[in-house]
């Protein structure tokens, strides 16, 4: 460990320090505004520290962490998403009774965990990052502990995540027992080199690891927690779970399976294909049956992770690019969609039933317009980031001739249109139909939330219309991934 290494992990250090500072500040004086400002400044500093870190990248910091363009790109994405989540949480928590400040400590801790995850190329840092992320998320999901649903969500998440972590650990142990290493790079060397070794423990090990990872991603058949946690958790926390938590895991998935070359194993390919197909179909079909917007978005996220797996299976740098691009688009869209839900929520309940959105256009045209754009992006309609993202996914799939998977992707995304359109139709129902009169004065929204939503909308359209600069940054980042 020397000076260069410290610079390389500066973003992680800044995040850690910020979490501690916010915690201490809460001890000294409880003020929601101060806590938020400290958090935002810390996150901004962490974001800025990516540049000094990138000047020394790529570098291996201890055997545990690799700081390369790929890790830094994802860290930037995570920090930016956390920034938006904090802004949304501020407006959301202002309406809530009870202590508010601790949520920011938890958010920062979770962001730290996710950042470690994207920089890990060792089983130990993988597990450490995952646990830091998960433990913070248990508390975050149940943060509004005087309500029933958040508590249910927190406990459900705790139990299932703990079990899946056990699966993951067992899987790691089996692979370690067989290969005698915890480093991704060395695993790759042994898998590829063709040195004859006993495979009996490799496949069970990989299967158990896929179980653990699949749980975190919320893909079928490990998706059971997703709708409940999405529904129960406070809306900004749901946004965080959907983006930072899942995004960090996808980044690790790419690194682990690409750098070890395990995605080339026929059986692994088969398992992921089945998971992808099941996620796309089940996610989209089950979403049709829901009446709760948060649950619809939960099932839609299952389907979207399935789409991402299709490109993941295509393999190669183009695929990594497509996955990363899709994830960026998905981050923006999901934050925007849950952002709308959270600015509409009040002190008693989240605005999550479809009835809350009926005729929204005639009451709040701008907000309804933003929600429309987010839904269209999820559905993959032009002018939005989701369209370009989906285009790259399909392109990656076709370039690897994954015809079956692409076919399922197409058909299931058409099924998905039904529920997006259903929300859209509700948004634009005329006042005469809903029976709700158009109020002359609508209560103003939290200003911070409106700014965040405006920023996300601009970004959504920008990526959708002129994706070239984003794509270039992503290509640059993915270049550092050592793909076998």
């Amino acid at each position, binding site marked *: 460990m020397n000076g260069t290494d410290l610079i390389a992990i500066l973003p992680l250090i800044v995040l850690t320090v910020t979490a501690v500072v916010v915690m201490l500040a809460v001890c000294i004086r409880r003020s929601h505004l101060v806590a938020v400002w400290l958090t935002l400044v810390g996150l901004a500093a962490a974001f800025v520290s990516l540049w000094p870190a990138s000047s020394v990248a790529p570098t291996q910091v201890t055997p545990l962490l690799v700081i390369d363009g790929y890790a830094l790109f994802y860290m930037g994405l995570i920090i930016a998403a956390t920034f938006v989540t904090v802004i949304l949480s501020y407006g959301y928590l202002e309406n809530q009774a009870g202590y508010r400040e601790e949520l920011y400590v938890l958010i920062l801790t979770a962001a730290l965990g996710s950042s470690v995850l994207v920089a890990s190329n060792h089983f130990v840092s993988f597990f450490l990052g995952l646990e830091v992320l998960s433990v913070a998320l248990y508390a975050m999901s149940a943060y509004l502990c005087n309500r029933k649903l958040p508590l249910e969500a927190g406990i459900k998440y705790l139990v299932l995540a703990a079990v899946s972590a056990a699966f993951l650990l067992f899987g790691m142990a089996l692979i370690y027992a067989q290969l005698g290493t915890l480093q991704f790079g060395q695993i790759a060397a042994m898998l590829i080199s063709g040195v004859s070794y006993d495979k009996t423990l490799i496949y069970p090990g990989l299967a158990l690891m896929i179980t653990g990872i699949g749980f975190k991603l919320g893909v079928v058949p490990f998706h059971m927690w997703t709708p409940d946690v999405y529904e129960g958790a406070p809306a900004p926390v749901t946004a965080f779970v959907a983006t930072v938590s899942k995004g960090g895991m996808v980044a690790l998935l790419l690194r682990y399976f690409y750098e070890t070359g395990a995605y080339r194993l026929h059986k692994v390919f088969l398992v992921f294909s089945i998971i992808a197909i099941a996620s796309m179909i089940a996610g989209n079909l089950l979403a049709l049956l829901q009446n709760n917007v948060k649950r619809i978005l939960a099932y839609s996220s299952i389907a979207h992770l399935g789409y991402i797996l299709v490109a993941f299976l295509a393999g190669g740098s183009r695929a990594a690019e497509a996955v990363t691009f899709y994830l960026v688009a998905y981050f923006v869209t999901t934050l925007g969609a849950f952002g709308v839900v959270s600015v509409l929520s009040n002190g008693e309940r989240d605005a999550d039933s479809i009835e809350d959105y009926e005729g929204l*256009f*005639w009451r709040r*045209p701008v907000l309804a317009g933003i929600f429309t754009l987010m839904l*269209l992006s999820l559905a993959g*309609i*032009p*002018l939005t980031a989701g*369209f370009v993202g989906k*285009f*790259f996914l*399909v*392109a990656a799939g*076709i*370039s690897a001739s994954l015809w079956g998977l*692409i076919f399922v992707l*197409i*058909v299931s*995304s*058409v099924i998905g*249109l*039904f529920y997006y*359109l259903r929300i*859209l*139709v509700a948004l*634009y129902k*005329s006042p005469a139909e809903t029976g709700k009169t158009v109020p002359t004065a609508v209560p103003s929204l939290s200003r911070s939330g409106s700014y965040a939503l405006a920023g996300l909308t601009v970004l959504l359209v920008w990526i959708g219309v*002129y*994706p*070239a600069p984003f*794509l*270039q940054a992503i*290509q640059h980042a993915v270049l550092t991934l050592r793909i076998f």
Partner: protein
Amino acid sequence: MILVWLIVILLVAGVLAGISGRVSTLWPRVISLVAVGLDFVISLVLWAQNSSYIKLFPQSDWFKQVDWAWVPQYGIHFHLAMDGLSLLMVVLTFLLGIMSVLVSWKEIQEGVGFFHFNLMWILAGILGVFLAVDLFLFYFMWELMLIPMFFLIAIWGHERRIYAAVKFFIFTQLSGLLMLIAILTLYFIHHSTTGVYTFEYRDLLGTALTPHMAMLLMLGFFVAFAVKLPMFPFHPWLPDAHTEAPTAGSVILAGLLLKTGAYGMLRFVVPLFPGAAHEFAPVAMVLGVIGIIYGAVLAFGQTDLKRLVAYTSVSHLGFALVGIFAWNELALEGVLIVLIAHGISTGALFMLVGGLQERTHTREMDRLQGLWATVPVMSGVVMFFAMASIGLPGLGDFVGEFLTLLGAYRVSLGVTIAAVIGILISTLYSLKVIQRAFHGANTHEWSLPDLGKRELLMMIPMMLILLWIGLYPQPLFRTFRPAMRKLQRYAAPQPVVTMAPGVRQLSYRRYGAPGINGSEP
């Protein structure tokens, strides 16, 4: 650059109309009318300027184009280009665009700003479809026009509007995604043979494909366009969407959206996959004939006036399909006239039915009877367009269908005979409308206002244009011919070349050096 402006004017006008809708209901209408009117004038000027150019340089590919790198990493360009075919389609777009703003003047009273926002953006999307020559951009525009159309039907439509809107959206989206797969596959095959990633239409022409692959890709494109056209058996969305849409929506659907399907077949299906298209032609022509007869028979069976007019579209566009796959000069010229004349005559019929519904609040023919006594002018105008629809000589539709039949006759006698039977049935349903709704005694004692000034202002130009096309279609042919020859050249049988690099050289020799054609005059 002017091509970009055409689109930008519409997009900006849409946003302005949407914003101004919060202040008054008049501003959105005025802004939209001015924007579309301005675009219409520009397109006419372009036509006038280039009519001489078309005569002078019949060999050049485009007479106006814009080509910007968009996503260079994937070889995606923002490439708009115009030739005679797209020019005529663009003029038609603006003409019907003006009509759809005017026809909504009284009909739409709720959410006026957002209505005109959608209207402008649909027109912009359609314009993009007619002008795009980068396949990514084409797909982008193809999808872009769906969402505003969905809103137009779902918000301002009639009783079963949600059902109709969702059905329309799902049909077009699914078929569009199939086209996306075909586009991407073509893109990767082109890359594997030439090493270049490109979505450029001209570069993808003549990509070396195995016959099997060419057939699959051709079908991918074909299905997307056949749904829009609409071809039997992909038509079920059409009657619902047309019937439930507000009048302006029906006009745009019938007049323009269906044309994008035919345009896509002309521009992409046959030139990109000439061999496969030739092999598939008998099937397509038979499906076209089935569409002609089936649409006409169903139209005859309807009691809802709007639904009846909707089914006639299935029938008329069947001629377009037959003509496109007959692919000879006569047939293609016929197709062009069918597209334009059908856009105008069916658009006008939808506007008239909309006007009737505004007055009587019904579209059921049984409840209308003997209207001639109370609205003589309107009845006369309906009569005029119904006659156009039958194919009365002297009016536009006749020229189109006649030429198409002449062209088809050279390819298949059977198809031609069957298509003529379709025309016979069209006489039945047109006369049925006149007889049931307008003739006879005014038993329901309707007493209605006749066509007003605004309505006459819309109807008279459309009648004149139909007459003009019917009597002197030469200017249209003159504009279209160079573009048509070019398409035929693209689709000419390719000499068999085994070496991949050879394909590229050959294509350069045939189409001329890129520098000459690529420059804007």
